């Protein structure tokens, strides 16, 4: 029955190398194909050309400026959407009647894809910041809502009984028992929500924007700069990966008590 802290295995160098093998192979083949003129550079420029464009865009500051604009929108929208999802999730998770009250409306709204809201939101709010932030908020709201409800519901009744025996009030019950127990599930929702938020901002910017990474891609298409376009696409992927990595670090820190979620995942 002795369960020691899981030993931290020292990985060989090849373990860290492993994820990079496929991308490197792919890029090499791509570059070779370009050199052999199998690929038309006006449609798919070679990796070296794209890398050169990346450097230029970094130097001019254009890329980072656009990423920063998009990122700010994501953070604002995510804060609103995830915040509301957290509150609504707690209410619906704790009260069966509240869930019943809201079940039909959430059931109707949830299947609507986030981008379907964009035209309506532009009509209502114009093409300024607020419509984009709202799209992101809507997108990140749902996964957070569902994961919070799920997390709250799955609190072990045995823990609730302990809190009853120890005469804990409702606030203590919520903050010390229910929320910590729901945290692993909540974190999953936050990570999915952040992914959707990042995807929605690009969608919103592709349709209507004058700045941001989505705008950069769209504009590059209009002036036929496939290399800029692809730098933009790659930047979305990299930033998304970075954000998820940061959330994962936060999760490990907060859930260090949990041998499954606090460890590696």
């Amino acid at each position, binding site marked *: 029955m002795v369960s020691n802290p899981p030993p931290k295995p020292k990985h060989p160098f090849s373990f860290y190398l492993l994820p990079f093998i496929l991308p490197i192979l792919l890029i090499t083949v791509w570059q070779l194909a370009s050199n052999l003129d199998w690929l038309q550079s006006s449609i798919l420029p070679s990796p070296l050309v794209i890398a050169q464009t990346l450097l230029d865009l970094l130097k001019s500051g254009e890329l980072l400026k656009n990423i920063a604009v998009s990122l700010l929108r994501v953070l604002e929208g995510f804060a609103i959407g995830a915040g509301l999802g957290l509150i609504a999730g707690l209410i619906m998770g704790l009260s069966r009647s509240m869930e019943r009250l809201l079940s039909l409306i959430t059931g109707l709204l949830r299947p609507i894809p986030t981008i379907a809201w964009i035209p309506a939101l532009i009509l209502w709010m114009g093409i300024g910041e607020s419509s984009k932030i709202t799209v992101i908020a809507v997108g990140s709201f749902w996964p957070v809502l569902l994961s919070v409800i799920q997390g709250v519901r799955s609190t072990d009744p045995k823990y609730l009984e302990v809190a*009853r025996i120890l005469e804990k009030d409702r606030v203590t019950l919520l903050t010390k028992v229910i929320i*910590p127990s729901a945290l692993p599930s909540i974190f999953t929702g936050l990570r999915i929500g952040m992914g959707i938020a990042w995807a929605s901002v690009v969608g919103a910017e592709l349709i209507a924007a004058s700045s941001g990474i989505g705008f950069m891609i769209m504009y590059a298409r209009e002036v036929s700069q496939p290399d800029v376009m692809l730098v933009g696409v790659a930047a979305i992927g990299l930033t998304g990966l970075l954000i998820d990595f940061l959330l994962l670090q936060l999760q490990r820190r907060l859930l260090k008590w949990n041998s499954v979620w606090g460890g590696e995942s």
Partner: protein
Amino acid sequence: MTKPMSLKIENLTKHYSLPQGDLAVLTGVDLTVQPGEFISIVGASGCGKSTLLRLIGGLEQVSEGRILFDETPIQNPGLDRGIVFQESRLFPWFTIEENIAFGCRKNLVESEKQQIVQDHIKLVGLLGFEKAYPHQLSGGMQQRTAIARALVSRPQILLLDEPFGALDALTRIQMQQEILNIWQKEKITVILVTHDIDEAVFLGDRVLVMSNRPGTFKKTLSVPLARPRDRNSAAFLALRKKIYDEFFSKKKTGGRSR
């Protein structure tokens, strides 16, 4: 500590309503526990002994009869009755120290609270493990933490629901010795539910044998042996056999009660 209070169970009945009709779990249970007494209740699984403990704990309501604690019927759980279950039920997100502190009464000054928690960590022998998380400890240490958590509020009664049932045999014997030390030190009333006859005789001032379905006390034995008890003494073994016979030998010959 306030003045000791007595526990009195009068003609208690508990049944659950099921679709197929009422299921009687306990009938005609009578018991008076003196303050500071150590009571062992032995029974087979499913005999209702845990239900009885949950009723005393206030986690469930009696169907008929009553349980009086300090002359008042028990209706709710309360910090005057600590409970330890077979599973430690520690919160995995709290350290050992935080888990124990969670058992404290409200409106304690922080320094006071720290002192009490520290005292109880010492009492159950977990010094040095304050900052560990439950999953880093062995089953026995987890149960020690659970016992400390049940004791920090200074309850009058400690209810133990097969607390050592999930531990290995050697750890179990060690824990039995320790619970005895704690009982003697704290001068607390203990009601232990177990299916381990040896454990019941080793610990209890009295051993109550519970019959099966519906559960009721079919026999009460006092254990007149001085502590520390020798599990291999003739008197101990004789008592042990007497209880053992209640469960097994007589079933074969068809008889039930004396």
